[in-house]
């Protein structure tokens, strides 16, 4: 495991205990940095002990910065926190370093498969980030991170939208797809991501299963337009 293994395990242990106790409403930056307002004291104590800037396990500092920036472009902060605040870049670095098959192109049936697919993901990330820089140089004469926000957006758009695909950018599209997979998984497996969806499973004890609230409209063709009425959150969420 990477150099921060012990601290991370400890923090996760505390998070586990705290969330069972129902006293841990949120956390900031997966297991690495914690926002003072929200955090159990035990977590804070450990977090302060390792409050130094994050040292990537796999990426170079420059690559890490780029991954963090791309993740935030994919899941930006708006009315809910974005990828950066949710620690998605740290997640990606950890998963890639540890060869966890987040976006594998085949089943993992053995440790050897895991190593091969893990190595493949590492290579795809390295070469993908290089591809992005090469593309931005050829399009705008500078590396991706030096481009303006508009330029960066246009570079991603030609990889993200079918209507803007170009025949020469296939490897870039593959990289973008993988980057998006890791980002979405990294974001929606944090409390921020799950809360942004209203994930009902954040509450773990229900007195009964609430059924459909509109059984008199079984086909659900007359539902109120979203936002027409403010719907109250379930009460008593643990």
């Amino acid at each position, binding site marked *: 495991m990477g150099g921060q293994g012990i601290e991370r*395990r400890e923090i996760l242990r505390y998070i586990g205990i705290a969330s069972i106790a129902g006293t841990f409403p949120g956390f900031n930056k997966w297991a690495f940095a914690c926002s003072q307002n929200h955090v159990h004291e035990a977590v804070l104590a450990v977090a302060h002990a390792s409050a130094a800037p994050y040292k990537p396990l796999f990426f170079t500092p420059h690559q890490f910065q780029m991954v963090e920036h791309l993740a935030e472009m994919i899941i930006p902060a708006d009315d809910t926190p974005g990828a950066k605040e949710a620690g998605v870049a740290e997640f990606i670095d950890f998963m890639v370093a540890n060869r966890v098959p987040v976006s594998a192109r085949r089943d993992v049936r053995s440790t050897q498969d895991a190593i091969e697919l893990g190595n493949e993901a590492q290579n795809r990330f390295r070469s993908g980030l290089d591809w992005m820089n090469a593309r931005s140089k050829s399009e705008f004469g500078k590396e991706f991170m030096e481009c303006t926000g508009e330029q960066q957006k246009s570079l991603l758009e030609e990889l993200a939208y*079918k209507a803007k695909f170009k025949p020469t950018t296939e490897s870039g599209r593959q990289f973008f797809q993988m980057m998006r997979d890791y980002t979405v998984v990294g974001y929606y497996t944090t409390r921020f991501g799950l809360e942004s969806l209203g994930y009902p*499973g954040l509450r773990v004890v229900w007195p009964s299963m609430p059924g459909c609230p509109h059984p008199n409209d079984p086909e659900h063709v007359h539902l109120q337009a979203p936002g027409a009425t403010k719907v109250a959150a379930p009460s008593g969420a643990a």
Partner: protein
Amino acid sequence: MPAKTFDVIVVGTGAGGGTAMKLLCEAGLSVCAINSGPRTDPSKDYKLHRQVYDLKYRGYGNPMRFAGNAHQEPYSVEESEYSEGRDLFEHDVAYSNAAGTDWYWKRCKATGGKANFWGRSSARYGDIDFKAADLDGFGQNWPVDYAEIAPWFSKAERYMGVASTVQNRPSNPDGEYLPPMPWRCIDYIIQKGAEKIGVPYLPDRCAQLTKAHNGHPACHYCGNCSRGCDVGAFFSPTWFTIPDAEATKNLTLLTNALVRSVLVDESGMATGVAYVDRGTKREVQVNAKVVVLAASCVETAHIMLNSKSRHWPTGIANSSGQLGKNLCDHLYGCPGYGYLPQLLGQPATPDNIADSTVAWMPRWQNLKNPKEEKFIRGYSVYMGGGCGEFPGHYSQLEGFGSEFKRNIKRYYPTPVGALIQAPSLPSAENYVDIDPEKKDTFGISQLRFHFQWGQNELLMWEHAKQVMIDLFKAMGAELWGMDDEPNRPGTSLHETGVCRFGSDPKTSVTNKWAQAHDVANLYICDASVFPSPTDKTTTMPIVAFTMRTCDHVLDNFKKGVHKRA
């Protein structure tokens, strides 16, 4: 290990073995239950009420965790980071696949077995299943009909607690039910769509306690069922049969004891079993008057095939040559998934807090006439969807940025998908045998699978894909796609048939009481006796047939067929 002779040895503590040891202990017999792996301790082994972000690898698990093990493939769903590090699943003993076979054999070796993590769908079989051969001319009938087994289904349901409704469908006999799970938005929409294309959509028979039952608490809907229950609010040996058996003080439970063979005397009758102690790797023998095998379907056949002696040169009780034959499974796969535009942008609803199949499409094909379709018999479909643990639908949505993020939320309540449950037909090509060369870490010859999907079940698969196209249209839904291929055989965990029961000793391994034709003191209490699969799941019927078999065992003790130790 104890030199004493027990009345009964029960091999395996899952749905069948757990039920057998409970009933036999409660009748006053001395029982030695032998379990392959460690004891399951829910308070330590299930990391429940945790969120995915509490797990170091966000649920993926450490990819290197099986380095050095004989069997390194993780088992999906049941085995996850939620139980990682607890050694509940079999990774020490490998199995082999013949050329062209890709069987996925998921094994939970801890006490309670796979029934700690099962899906809880619990429909009764009916005469349409037991007498299928009479209807369509294929294969053999079961040696038991509905009238004979119905009281045992009732006993099993009363003990386990099954939630459903009375539906009056001849193909799906009704049972004794707890209140059903309430329907979700998706269920109402699916039901209306299904109605338009003439397909039933009805509450499933779900062994999940919608109210407190026999001292077990009602479900608290934490949604973690497939990772094991922390309070026993659905039937599992760990919370039901094992504590019941232990309360009698008649139980000796051996753990980490991997049974290698059934031992026999001069006349070929069973005298006990030999097992390997996983800790010491030494072989140990236990004696009993009666041996019950309930090691899970194919493992029971594995033990029997490995029980070779002068009397039984091809495996114990195999004078019929049927041991290991007739391997069947449910073909699983997703014949269609997509989304319901009606629910776009609606607030999140707690659709999956019961983690269960609230409703399903029970078999509707070949009911009026057994040959109305291109295939014989029939299949069922489970539907899932709504707000889940992860917004996997993101992969259907284009783009990035705030609009992409908004769309992920907007589509969150909308996804729906189908799971087909299609029974394979018994075939001479589908069987298990002993690998002539490979042995496992403990020196036991490995089991080898020979299995291909047959034409009948593949026709069902094609049929289901067409039905889903029609259903999605009828629901006003959009279809995103369907699986190219069905899942690998073994995925369903519903293997059957390798020790089939029947009336004729020449063509079956056991009689209708699941007592070996050749060896009167050897019984089988798992799905290996089921001669052909149905469109329904296996666990509740395993419990019901085990109850009936145990009644017969006790009767034979009373009549003196078996002597007490």
